[in-house]
């Protein structure tokens, strides 16, 4: 079946893509110097990660099906009413139902939506319609949409080189809608019809949509900073010494300010060091459970991965192993973003220093482990008035008298939003 029938919404002349000669050259991101603190001073610059081709080379991305699926027991009348109530023009609904593309399968009834129906949805209608689609679990791009965080397609494209014309990107922006977390995109199959019919091009587009902003971070010891204080910070007062040899070697006591900066990866415990800037290998999954933000955060100081953190046990551990703390935060502190109403945790990450965190934004294999500012993470997961941030420290890093705390008022459950891509 030929999946792609170009809609000619974008003139072909603009779609001469060369995957070798990139259309836009991105400037190198500037070096940012952070605040001086007990950690020393961090300098950072942004990098943009995309998953490797091998992770995208599957039919969902290379030959994305442009279909809408409904529960198998829905007849044409019911589908028609549903689509009309969703805001699709009656003429388009009729066109879809009369097109002869409706098919009945064991687990779904599917039809080929018209491009006009998809294009004409406003963002609110799109969000509502796709929220319904996502409940049934049979519309893969609505169940697990591309999660763009605070970005749209154009701003993601602007982060680094890419081969897509400006017009195509502006067109793609029309299909971004607000969801949880933040901006989402489900109309990947339709957008692929606007691209040259080549697998390599679709993979390139999927990778662009899956871009993650990350920071490359290095430590400096400015003049006047106490090297001892810095050591204490990164070793949690000597309780975690694995990074101390490299720290001591990089910054000689006589003139640490003159030493070149040290990549922060040297100061991370073994597991985050192993994972940083990588994508989750399939081998880490247990059945349908994949390493997510909770697994990552709870494993931060572990010598070996504990797969018990694939279970939703954050609530059990708060108050027993992890104790609430106030600022100033310390290296490795567990940051939870919780829903105000239910108390459910929607995201977890670990504090590093100077408001930078180690985070995995999603359980998808297509989301890497990275370092980001906490503000970037909050932009993705937190809405003012609906979420709050709470910080916890592992009991072994607390003075003995404060290592126990009253149990939280409400149990906190892992409630990661439905699978963004």
């Amino acid at each position, binding site marked *: 079946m030929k999946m792609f029938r170009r809609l000619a919404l974008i003139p072909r002349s603009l779609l001469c893509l060369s995957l070798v000669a990139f259309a836009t050259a*991105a400037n*190198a991101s500037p070096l940012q110097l952070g605040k001086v603190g007990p950690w020393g001073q961090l300098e950072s610059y942004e990098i943009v990660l995309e998953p*490797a081709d091998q992770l995208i080379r599957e039919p969902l991305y290379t030959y994305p099906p442009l279909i809408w699926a409904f529960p198998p027991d829905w007849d044409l009348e019911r589908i028609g009413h549903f689509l009309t109530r969703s805001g699709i023009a009656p003429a388009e609904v009729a066109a879809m139902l009369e097109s002869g593309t409706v098919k009945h399968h064991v687990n779904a009834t599917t039809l080929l939506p018209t491009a006009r129906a998809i294009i004409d949805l406003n963002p609110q209608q799109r969000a509502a319609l796709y929220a319904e689609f996502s409940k049934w679990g049979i519309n893969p791009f609505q169940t697990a949409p591309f999660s763009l965080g605070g970005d749209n397609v154009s701003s993601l494209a602007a982060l680094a080189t890419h081969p897509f014309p400006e017009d195509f990107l502006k067109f793609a922006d029309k299909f971004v809608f607000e969801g949880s977390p933040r901006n989402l995109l489900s109309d990947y199959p339709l957008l692929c019809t606007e691209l040259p019919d080549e697998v390599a091009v679709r993979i390139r587009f999927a990778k662009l949509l899956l871009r993650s902003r990350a920071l490359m971070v290095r430590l400096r010891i400015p003049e006047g900073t106490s090297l001892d204080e810095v050591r204490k910070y990164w070793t949690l007062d000597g309780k975690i010494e694995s990074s101390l040899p490299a720290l001591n070697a*990089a910054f000689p006591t006589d003139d640490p300010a003159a030493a070149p900066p040290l990549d922060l*990866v040297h100061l991370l415990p073994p597991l985050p*060091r192993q994972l940083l*800037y990588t994508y989750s290998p399939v081998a880490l999954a247990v059945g349908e459970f994949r390493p997510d933000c909770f697994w990552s955060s709870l494993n931060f100081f572990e010598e070996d991965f504990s797969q018990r953190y694939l279970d939703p046990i954050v609530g059990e551990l708060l108050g027993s192993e992890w104790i609430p703390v106030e600022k100033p935060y310390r290296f490795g502190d567990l940051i939870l973003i919780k829903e105000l109403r239910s108390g459910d945790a929607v995201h977890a990450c670990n504090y590093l220093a100077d408001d930078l965190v180690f985070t995995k934004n999603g359980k998808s294999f297509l989301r890497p482990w990275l370092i980001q500012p906490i503000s970037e993470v909050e932009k993705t997961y937190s809405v003012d008035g609906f979420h709050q941030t709470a910080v916890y420290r592992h009991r072994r890093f607390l003075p003995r008298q404060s290592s126990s705390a009253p149990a939280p008022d409400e149990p906190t459950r892992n409630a990661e939003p439905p699978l963004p891509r």
Partner: protein
Amino acid sequence: MATSVLFSAPPEEDSDSVDPAPKPNWGKIETTQFVLEPPDELLDEPLYYAPSLLWAFPLEWDSEKISHFFRESGLDEDFIEKFLTQERILKPGVAVGYVPTREMVLQLSNRQREALYTRLGQWDFNPYHSNPFEFGTMRLTDVAEMAPHAFPKEFISQADKLVYQIGRKHVFADYAAMAGPLPDELARLDFAKLLLRTRCHFARMNPFANEEAAEIIRYWSARNRNLDVVPILEAAARSKGRDPINLIHLLPPIPRSLVFTFPPPQSMVGTKRPDCFWTAHNFFTPEISQRYLDVTFEDSDFEGWLPIEPPYELGDVILVVDQANPEKIYHACNYVADDLVFTKNGTSRIRPWVLQTLDDMKSVYFREGETKLIFLRREEFVENP
């Protein structure tokens, strides 16, 4: 075990030229030398902070037997007589020892020191002799010069005179004689750290042109055994003119988590600790495999590996073997790129995992005319074996 295949026709390595064939493109690598010292927690033992100057013998030995021992080690009667009048210490159930004076220790000739200490080292109850500080082909002065330290030149010079050889290795066993008189525990620990220095390298890959990206990614992907690094390399290719990439980001997960660290206490399995063979075998494993610490696992077991010619690739195993008897393996490590290796030089917890130059590794294990290098690759990755 395929050792006969392994060692029947090893490629002869000229110690001055490791890799004469055209090199694959691993990018432009810059290195900065530095010196790693063990953290205080690993030296928090009386052995280091409160050393005892003691020469011990089996419990049942009497003066006659001890005298005979000294004569065989080349010591004269005056020395023996004086020694046997020194303070005698009994370690119940273990050994009987005498405390030589510092002067007695310092006055030993090189030959006497080598003979005596080698023989004292046959017993574990002489810890400084059975497990001396090792410097490979370097002297103690070379180790001191690696990085700044607080010890006077004369002190280092005097300690250097006490270095002797076991085979071709330079070793030092007079820690107690030199560290004992130091003013406090901190000073003694600083001295121990100096003796335990390891020279290694931070390394980074300079920015590369887009045209080189495919070749560089191909090298570091290591024939699809190291695909984790593809995203970071692609990010570097996209971000034109950005800063170098720390090479640690290009290593497979296990070496990435270990490099420039010391083994934690829980790394032991029974009495066995991760050594160079454990390290070399675990280079590409997604999770640490402790089978390489099994008592049934032979360190020399490289079944399924074949000897190879240059150019070498990420993860290739380098063996330092006896020239006359190649089945005697002294060391194993992994090739990284540009003659950098990932290595753990010893079983001890006070020997870290490091990135070193091949030359630095050879300074510890390689002896011209007595040893040679063999490079190995998994047979499924060897073209035209």
